[in-house]
């Protein structure tokens, strides 16, 4: 099981557009990009409308996920090939989500939409026509999902990785800089969390760095290979990117994504918060 089992090149993708049993899926928060042009045959998943419960702050449940994939014509034995904008943030989130609900064969297109566009590969506005399926999801695998109490308990005991930008980590910014900075939650990071921005794991064209570069990155950051790891960001999609790197590319065994992330943690009453560029202490 190397990176080729979870990551495919844009070239591979273009050659396999018509391969039976392979479904291309574009995942984005803002799906207007899909509507103006997508990889031929690709199905659209809207991160906000399709993958989030519309009332509670949580995922869609197992039955909702089954209904969604059945309606989009995705079968249990299909190879699902995900890609998207924002350097594959939301596609990585969907990858983690498909794994959470037990889908067997899932892959990401290296570089996502950006690499595909910069290469000048074909895009179409034609919508795919897929027959509905009877998709059957497994119960959620919470061995890859962290909840808030686990994060508080992990302070000083597990690897916590904050993958936001250095200014968000330090508390100088409250959101990624393409969003307004007036936000409700407190600024800062979970004490003892290491700052390893997701972007350090990617090249400028959105492709992932090599296994050697990635291994060196987390070693230099002080990740303790003998401990379990929880990654977080602001809403859990940039940390899915890092979860993918640690769990799927580097094959670390116990890695969780905390999808509540800073919008939850920074709003909790009574939990410790560190500000500034240093991890801070557990006490």
């Amino acid at each position, binding site marked *: 099981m190397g990176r080729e089992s979870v990551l495919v090149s844009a070239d591979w993708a273009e050659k396999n557009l018509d391969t039976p049993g392979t479904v291309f899926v574009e995942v*984005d*928060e*803002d799906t*207007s*990009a899909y509507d103006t042009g997508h990889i031929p045959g690709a199905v659209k998943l809207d*991160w*906000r409308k399709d993958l*989030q419960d519309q009332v509670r*702050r949580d995922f869609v449940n197992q039955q909702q996920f089954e209904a969604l994939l059945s309606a989009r014509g995705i079968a249990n034995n299909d190879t699902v090939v995900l890609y998207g*904008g*924002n*350097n594959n*943030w*939301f596609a990585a989130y969907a990858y983690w989500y498909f794994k959470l609900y037990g889908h067997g064969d899932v892959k990401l297109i290296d570089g996502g939409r*950006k690499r595909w*566009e*910069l290469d*000048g590969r074909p895009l179409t506005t034609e919508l795919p026509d897929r027959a509905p399926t009877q998709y059957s999801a497994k119960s959620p695998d919470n061995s890859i999902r962290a909840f808030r109490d686990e994060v508080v308990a992990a302070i000083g005991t597990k690897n916590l990785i904050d993958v936001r*930008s*250095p*200014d968000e980590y330090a508390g*100088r*910014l409250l*959101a*990624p*800089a*393409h*969003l*307004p*900075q*007036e*936000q*409700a939650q407190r600024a800062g990071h979970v004490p003892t969390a290491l700052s390893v*921005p997701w*972007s*350090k794991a990617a090249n*400028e*064209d959105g492709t992932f760095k090599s296994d050697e570069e990635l291994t060196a990155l987390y070693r230099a950051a002080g990740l303790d290979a003998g401990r379990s790891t929880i990654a977080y*960001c*602001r*809403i859990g*999609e*940039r940390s899915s990117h890092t979860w993918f790197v640690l769990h799927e590319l580097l094959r670390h065994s116990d890695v969780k994504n905390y999808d509540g992330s800073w*919008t939850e943690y920074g709003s909790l009453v009574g939990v410790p918060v560190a500000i500034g560029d240093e991890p801070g202490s557990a006490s």
Partner: protein
Amino acid sequence: MTSAVDIAGCGAPDQSDALPAGIDLAKETVIGGTVRADDGPVGGAYVRLLDASGEFTAEVVTSPAGQFRFFAAPGHWTVRALSRAGSGELIVAADRGLNDVTIDVAAA
């Protein structure tokens, strides 16, 4: 497209939108502008904002008219554009309010 101030999301809003209602320019440091090549604005360019240490902070895709916009903080930033027409970058000393910049791109 929902409002850019919706904290539930994390993707970039439409880069040609007017500034969302409720944005206080006395508080926000907005770095925005246009990506241009020799033959005019470049839509679909990838523009990233790097902090004073050169670390990635955000990335957006320009509107068909080549527009982009970041919400940063006062200080020095690098704005870097990558597109099929080429790449280019600019260092910006940003203050609160609107900081309007033009990034020229050319094939290397």
